[in-house]
């Protein structure tokens, strides 16, 4: 259980990072090389839901594991844990944020675009917290493969966020017009 809990946490971290990257790409409105916009959007959704599945494995396994001494309250209320309460608390914070993002994502049509967007912005807060949790709380958080993986996804996400903040990020209507068949006689 202990090993499974750690492995699923690691997988969830990778999937969440991929989801953030795909989410930024989705917002840009661009296709991914040959992959149409719809597929990018669906991939973002499905990778996110897979991250959630692995997160449930991660938390569930550690709840059942006697060594981890995780209580149900720790799953929802941060910083009360017995083992490295600060780093574990970050995991709880990330989980709560992710829950809000996923639930509002699934209920987008009910709650409306404005609320959805507002809550979805929390992803940018959730991701660094989750990364910090996996490094600081993981028993092998400082082992070479984990550090390498964290460095890779961090560089990727930071680069994506930099792109997100750059001027040419959005595929605006003006830009589509340039790609399109617009002609000036």
């Amino acid at each position, binding site marked *: 259980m202990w090993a499974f809990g750690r492995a699923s946490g690691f997988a969830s971290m990778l999937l969440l990072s991929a989801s953030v990257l795909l989410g930024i790409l989705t917002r840009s409105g661009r296709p991914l090389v040959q992959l149409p*916009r719809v597929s990018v*959007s669906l991939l973002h959704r499905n990778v996110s839901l897979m991250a959630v599945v692995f997160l449930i494995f991660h938390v569930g396994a550690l709840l059942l594991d006697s060594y981890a001494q995780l209580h149900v309250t720790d799953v929802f209320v941060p910083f009360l844990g017995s083992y490295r309460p600060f780093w574990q608390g970050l995991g709880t914070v990330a989980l709560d944020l992710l829950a809000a993002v996923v639930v509002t994502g699934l209920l987008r049509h009910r709650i409306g675009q404005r609320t959805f967007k507002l809550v979805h912005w929390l992803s940018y807060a959730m991701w660094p917290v989750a990364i910090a949790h996996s490094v600081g709380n993981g028993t092998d958080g400082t082992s070479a493969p984990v550090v390498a993986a964290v460095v890779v996804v961090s560089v990727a996400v930071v680069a994506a966020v930099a792109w997100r903040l750059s001027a040419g990020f959005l*595929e605006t*209507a003006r830009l589509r017009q340039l790609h399109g068949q*617009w002609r000036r006689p």
Partner: protein
Amino acid sequence: MSADSRREAAARLHIDWTRCDGRGLCAELLPEALSRDDWGFPLAAPGRLAVDADKSNVPLKHSELGAAADAVKLCPVLALRLARP
């Protein structure tokens, strides 16, 4: 042909132009019903509509209903609605 497809319309895809941002997911999902204009906004395919028809409500065939439901679900700005007759 176009008159037939209008009569057979299983539903109409309503475009809320005040929300539409021209991201183009709907045109990817419904390539036969929708193309995109100069700026990327969805455009009823030629032959779908009579000349003066309401271009904000695009008639769909039965075979397109599944893709249309996906388009409504996946539109990034919630600009689409399915209106069944």
